[in-house]
């Protein structure tokens, strides 16, 4: 038996390389997230399985990069097997804490029910005990805490009480400790930023800005309707301008029909502030979140087409941009055997998209009980349920060449009848061309001084 072109590949249309006048394609292996530039004639040979017409070193490279797979290989089983193994192997214990159920904002697409309730000291202690039990049982090397909302900075008092105890637990079990926070940015002033990084070991801060004020303030006002963009933007830019804090900064822009035209301006305004090199920008389509918010969104095709433009602009302006998707072995909290979220009511979940939502009750399939009567610590069976579902053909993922890099998308949305396929499924060919163009530009920049010399 010989080799076959892996089903997990994407190839661009033919394009003319203006440097040498040759027709080429870009070939992307989603099994390894690597791409190659292939001549049209080589591509024809690869496509038709005529590998003996290619130089041996080329074929060897294609085998090693998994563009080619043994003819008899069940590739789906291989991919899912690797995903399951990666989940079992994970040495990071990731736990998400929603310290409060409160949020100042009244975002149009959010259906969380906010109220002034913080995670009680009793619940905090119960959760800490649960974390310790996990650290004791599992062989973890890192404890990672995600502070989520509602708005987590309204629960700063909870963070102040829990952080030292979490760090202590990590130390006790010989683990590294780090945290991330996803915040609306309203309270993210200089003192709070310093406190997050220095006292709470926050290594990643994500803020959402939905465009310039005229767009953002329509979708993300305060509950009373007041504007928020200026304050969030200023806080975030001021943080990005600081060189004394070692923290990764992400800027998310939730994009729907109403603000799609504002993304370019948002990018330019960050660049004008001169902090773009520090900020990892990404656009996310507004999606159904226990509601019909997806109705406010662009169609998936529209979003995908425009997203590549934003990526190109971001790259041109000097933002670090991840154009090509990476291999996704571990998808989300739902596929982590020990992953868990606690909300401010003491509810436990194996998903970040369920708590505080009226549409999902305590019996939701991703609910894991309450701290007073929690589910078993080990969620391996539940974590593997998704890969079994994919394997069974319950979703079209088994047939999709993007599966290795998207992991199948959000399991919850599939089960609710939505198609959560990432934009990359629709724009991967354009992304490949963009990635290749950027790589060439970088290579040219790298070689220019030498050429001049």
């Amino acid at each position, binding site marked *: 038996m010989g080799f076959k072109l892996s089903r997990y590949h994407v190839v661009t249309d033919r394009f003319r390389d203006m440097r040498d006048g040759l027709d080429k394609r870009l070939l992307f292996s989603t099994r390894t997230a690597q791409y190659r530039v292939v001549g049209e004639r080589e591509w024809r040979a690869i496509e038709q399985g005529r590998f003996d017409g290619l130089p041996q*070193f080329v074929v060897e490279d294609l085998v090693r990069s998994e563009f080619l797979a*043994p003819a008899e290989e069940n590739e789906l089983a291989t991919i899912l097997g690797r995903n399951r193994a990666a989940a079992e192997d994970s040495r990071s214990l990731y736990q998400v804490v929603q310290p409060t159920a409160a949020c100042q904002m009244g975002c149009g697409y959010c259906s969380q029910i906010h109220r002034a309730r913080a995670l009680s000291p009793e619940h905090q202690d119960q959760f800490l005990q649960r974390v310790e039990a996990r650290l004791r049982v599992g062989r973890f090397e890192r404890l990672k805490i995600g502070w989520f909302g509602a708005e987590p900075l309204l629960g700063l008092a909870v963070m102040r009480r829990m952080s030292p105890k979490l760090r202590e637990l990590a130390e006790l079990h010989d683990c590294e400790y780090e945290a991330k926070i996803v915040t609306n940015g309203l309270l993210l002033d200089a003192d709070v930023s310093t406190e997050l990084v220095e006292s709470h070991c926050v290594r990643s801060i994500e803020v959402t800005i939905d465009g310039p004020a005229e767009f953002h303030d329509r979708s993300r006002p305060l509950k009373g309707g007041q504007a928020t963009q200026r304050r969030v933007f200023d806080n975030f830019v001021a943080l990005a301008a600081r060189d004394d804090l070692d923290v990764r900064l992400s800027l998310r822009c939730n994009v729907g029909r109403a603000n799609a035209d504002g993304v370019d301006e948002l990018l330019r305004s960050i660049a004008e502030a001169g902090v773009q090199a520090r900020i990892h920008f990404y656009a996310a389509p507004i999606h159904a979140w226990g509601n019909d918010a997806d109705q406010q969104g662009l169609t998936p095709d529209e979003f995908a087409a425009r997203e590549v433009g934003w990526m190109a602009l971001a790259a041109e302006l000097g933002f670090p941009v991840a154009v090509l998707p990476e291999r996704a072995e571990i998808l989300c909290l739902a596929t982590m055997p020990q992953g868990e979220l606690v909300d401010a009511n003491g509810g436990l979940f194996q998903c970040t998209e369920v708590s505080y939502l009226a549409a999902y009750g305590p019996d939701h399939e991703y609910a894991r009980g309450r701290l007073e009567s929690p589910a078993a610590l080990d969620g391996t069976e539940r974590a593997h349920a998704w890969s079994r579902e994919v394997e069974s053909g319950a979703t079209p993922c088994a047939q999709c060449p993007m599966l290795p890099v998207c992991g199948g998308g959000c399991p919850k949305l599939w089960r609710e009848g939505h198609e959560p396929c990432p934009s990359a499924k629709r724009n991967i060919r354009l992304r490949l061309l963009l990635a290749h163009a950027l790589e060439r530009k970088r290579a040219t920049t790298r070689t220019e001084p030498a050429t001049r010399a």
Partner: protein
Amino acid sequence: MQPAIEPARAEERSPASAHPVDAAAGGAAFQRAVWESLVASTDALERLRVLHAWDASTRALRMAREGRLASAAQHFRESERAGESASLSPMSQALCASVRESALAYLEFRRGDHASAELRLRRAMEHDIELERRHGMSVFYMHRVQLLHNFVRLHVHEGDFARAWSLGVRTLGHLQGALPAPIELAARRDVPLRTASTALVAAMACQVACELAKLLLTWRPDGRAVELLASALAPEGSEAPSELCSAWMRAVVACLRGDGDHVSEECEALLQPGLGRMAVLRESLEVLRLRGSDG
């Protein structure tokens, strides 16, 4: 001329860099020799299959080293499926099996299952003997020496220090040309070490010496063990593949016999900082000297 695949130009891919048996054996010379044998006796498709199986084993070994044991097991299964294909010649099957079994031994070792690790090493050795004797791949003699080195590590982790020392010293003495092949090597008298390059033999000797040096950091050999090391020294005037190892062995023997000052002075020049991964040789001498002065 049509473009080839750009990120992988021919000139960037020598056989040595392209075919990583380093997981199981180490050394570019070994890899080149194995690949050349394969090129001489198999067609391109078969070589691709072997390459595919090796790659999977190499990935698996890397993951095992990183402590990702479930992933390592997954990639070993992939390697096994690729390497046991009925379409492969017996030689290619043995090649894949040798690489896989020796790498799997490491996975078992990381799992703490020393009995299975030992079994895997023995199986790898059987495949090596087959490759050497039935298929004329004499380079696999050195792979078996590598497996002996792995046995030494295994004995250390089992706490059987005397056994580890004995096997390590006899292996080192064999590599340095002072002792016959250890019986554990199941070597034939007519397949001498000279089939391997001096560079490869020297590299292997250093690896074994480092293992013995690590052992010396925590364990003190008795008189018989010291004499065994003395007997493993290349005879005076003969040229051992690794002069560094010879110097280290002389210094260790001297230290353990209690006349450390004299010989270790002689060797100091050889054991200056800058040995990189072999810094443990120097450390072991420092420990022996300290112990000597304590005593």
